[in-house]
């Protein structure tokens, strides 16, 4: 693959991120050359070190001014009811009144039956107790129910339930925590242990995804699944059966969020790999300004991939990486920053 290294090509096609975030998530090619080729207009240049976003994002301003929404996920991408909620909160200026609004939502939240207050449904990392339940309705939209012993947390849960319930899985998975900023509730969006809001959203998305995956795999209807799990009840076995299924079909790495899941799915579907490892290493890059500010970055911005597949047979290293990048175009355009790829054929392992 002769790289055409003419300077004009180089300059016109390369857009680098202007800060010192270089080389970590680099791929392991033996050569560190920049590899370029003439770009079709619909593709960006792919430097094998870094993924380049189309927009240079500036760090998210700390204020809750709506004008900063240019850096956040656009409100139009949110499910309609969530959009309404966001607009409502934006119209309420007084912070104390926002509180009241939040508590109002919480008060009107449909109570969660105590049999659904299981470990599986509990949101990790909340100082208060929060449970979330998800199931499909007849049209395969996700319906949520939630509860909490803290009224503020219940309010937040109610926001999410009202905003996301009754929507299809894909729409739910697209939501990022950015909208919390728009609400004017100054949330810390770092995925720290105590950020129950982020974890609530994550759990709801994870549940939506697993409902989808289970339904696609043709295992018995998720609704009856859950019901039967609960009916058998207090024995610890049935819940763990569901959990095993979930973990087998969904991921074998514990903390994969929605993007990680999508990556895995895509690669599995298209490359039919013998081995596939998807590792979210975004935390290693959590300090970057770009990561903080980028749309769609629910903290899921950097991944390590290890793919062993016959599909790589006869292809050069660069071509293999190109294959993977091509498959993950959508992710790359929505906030995925960088991939570190190990691509081998079964013979090479």
């Amino acid at each position: 693959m002769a790289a055409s290294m003419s300077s004009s090509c180089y300059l016109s096609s390369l857009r680098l991120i202007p800060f010192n975030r270089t080389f970590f998530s680099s791929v392991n090619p033996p050569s560190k050359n920049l590899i370029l080729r003439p770009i079709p207009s619909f593709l960006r240049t792919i430097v094998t070190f870094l993924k380049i976003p189309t927009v240079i994002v500036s760090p998210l301003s700390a204020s809750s001014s709506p004008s900063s929404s240019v850096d956040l996920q656009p409100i139009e991408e949110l499910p309609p009811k969530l959009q309404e909620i966001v607009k409502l909160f934006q119209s309420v200026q007084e912070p104390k009144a926002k509180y009241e609004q939040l508590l109002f939502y919480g008060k009107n939240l449909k109570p969660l039956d105590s049999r659904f207050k299981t470990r599986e449904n509990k949101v990790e990392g909340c100082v208060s107790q929060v449970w979330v339940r998800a199931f499909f309705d007849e049209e395969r939209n996700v319906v949520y129910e939630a509860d909490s012993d803290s009224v503020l947390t219940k309010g937040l849960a109610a926001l999410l339930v009202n905003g996301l319930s009754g929507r299809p899985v894909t729409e739910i998975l697209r939501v990022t925590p950015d909208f919390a900023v728009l609400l004017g509730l100054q949330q810390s969006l770092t995925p720290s242990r105590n950020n129950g809001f982020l974890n609530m959203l994550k759990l709801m998305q994870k549940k939506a995804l697993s409902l989808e995956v289970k339904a696609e795999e043709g295992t018995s209807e998720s609704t009856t699944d859950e019901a039967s799990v609960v009916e058998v009840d207090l024995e610890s076995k049935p819940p763990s059966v569901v959990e095993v299924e979930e973990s087998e079909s969904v991921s074998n790495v514990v903390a994969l969020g929605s993007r990680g899941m999508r990556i895995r799915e895509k690669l599995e579907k298209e490359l039919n790999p013998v081995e596939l490892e998807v590792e979210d290493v975004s935390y290693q890059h959590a300090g970057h300004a770009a990561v903080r500010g980028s749309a769609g970055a629910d903290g899921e911005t950097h991944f390590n991939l290890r793919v062993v597949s016959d599909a790589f047979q006869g292809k050069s290293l660069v071509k293999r990486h190109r294959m993977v990048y091509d498959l993950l175009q959508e992710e790359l355009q929505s906030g995925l920053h960088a991939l570190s790829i190990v691509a081998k054929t079964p013979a090479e392992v």
Partner: protein
Amino acid sequence: MEGVAMKLPSFKSLAPTAISVASTFSIRRSLSFARRSSSLSAATITADSEPVSLGHRARKDFRILHQEVNGSKLVYLDSAATSQKPAAVLEALQNYYEFYNSNVHRGIHYLSAKATDEFELARKKVARFINASDSREIVFTRNATEAINLVAYSWGLSNLKPGDEVILTVAEHHSCIVPWQIVSQKTGAVLKFVTLNEDEVPDIDMLREMISEKTKLVAVHHVSNVLASSLPIEEIVVWAHEVGAKVLVDACQSVPHMVVDVQKLNADFLVASSHKMCGPTGIGFLYGKSDLLLAMPPFLGGGEMISDVFLDHSTYAEPPSRFEAGTPAIGEAIALGAACDYLSDIGMPKIHEYEVELAKYLYETLASVPDVRIYGPRPSESVQRAALCSFNVEGLHPTDLATFLDQQHGVAIRSGHHCAQPLHRYLGVNASARASLYFYNTKEDVDSFIVALADTVSFFNSFK
């Protein structure tokens, strides 16, 4: 929920309310306060000639307390979690790095000698602070948790046999439960827990009965970080020694607040953290009787704790070096020494006396708020509480409370299980809120807290 942080306007209108509430509550109390504080050294007379309390005077040394958070004056009521540091301590730390930073113990050159001298001087200061007979009985650790782990792994693993018993209470901090669980699993020793009596303090009679020939160690707190109660350590040590058992005292909540004399207590081990006593984080200490430390094998291995090192074996240094592997937190130790100096200059008896009053005031005003349930014993003639209150408000989650207090009133309290999950389970609650004071807090801080609490409760109640 700790993740929630809402921006709220400053409620300056609270200030007048605070004053009027304070005066209704505390006319009598402020007078008795005045009498007491006038006996304190060189009180500055204010315009209305009311003598200034220890809290007011001490506050000047703590710049961090003079700020606004979320639009309100900061009221810091979380000293049981960590204390604030006076300027003198910060200077000592800065000074170290600016003028004589150097690795200790092995160096020959001037800076190294000076650093070593100051480091060892700090050790002496700590020893003097708790009246240890010899500074070699002070082992510097990262914090009290590490100190307890040191005893567990070093003393515990080599002294506990299957069937031996270790006595704890259900009110222990996790750092004085988990290491013993780990070690008992490895050695086959058995853990026994003293529960609470109807006054909500550990049942001393039960403790006494539990001590038997099989007991090898009693590991208990001196002052509880949730219940605010204290245990009669001297008596416990007598009972334990009768059967040949050792006693480890978790003094994290006592050393910062009162006179602790290890010779008088006659404890075998005692641990404390610097960051709770106006010192920096990253340093704490273990006090251990000389003969015990001498017999203990090393905990962590590395430099400093060795004598001679060969390829296949090494010989170890004498205590305390034996238990101080690697380069220590030199600046931090020196700053801890400065903290000991600072506290001693005020006088631990004075600090304690002030806090006893403050503790009573806090308890009584808090108890007067409706639907509040405070954990631990009621203060009385015979029972002195520490200056902290863990509590719950009926129908209100402590996290909601703490969030609102912080956001609307700038009052910093803690909510959660305070590293005492077994205790909370025993009390039948998931979590509690806790307000804890130190000698730089004032009556006014307590008043602000109570007003803010009342406002918070009524806000959430309006949604019921």
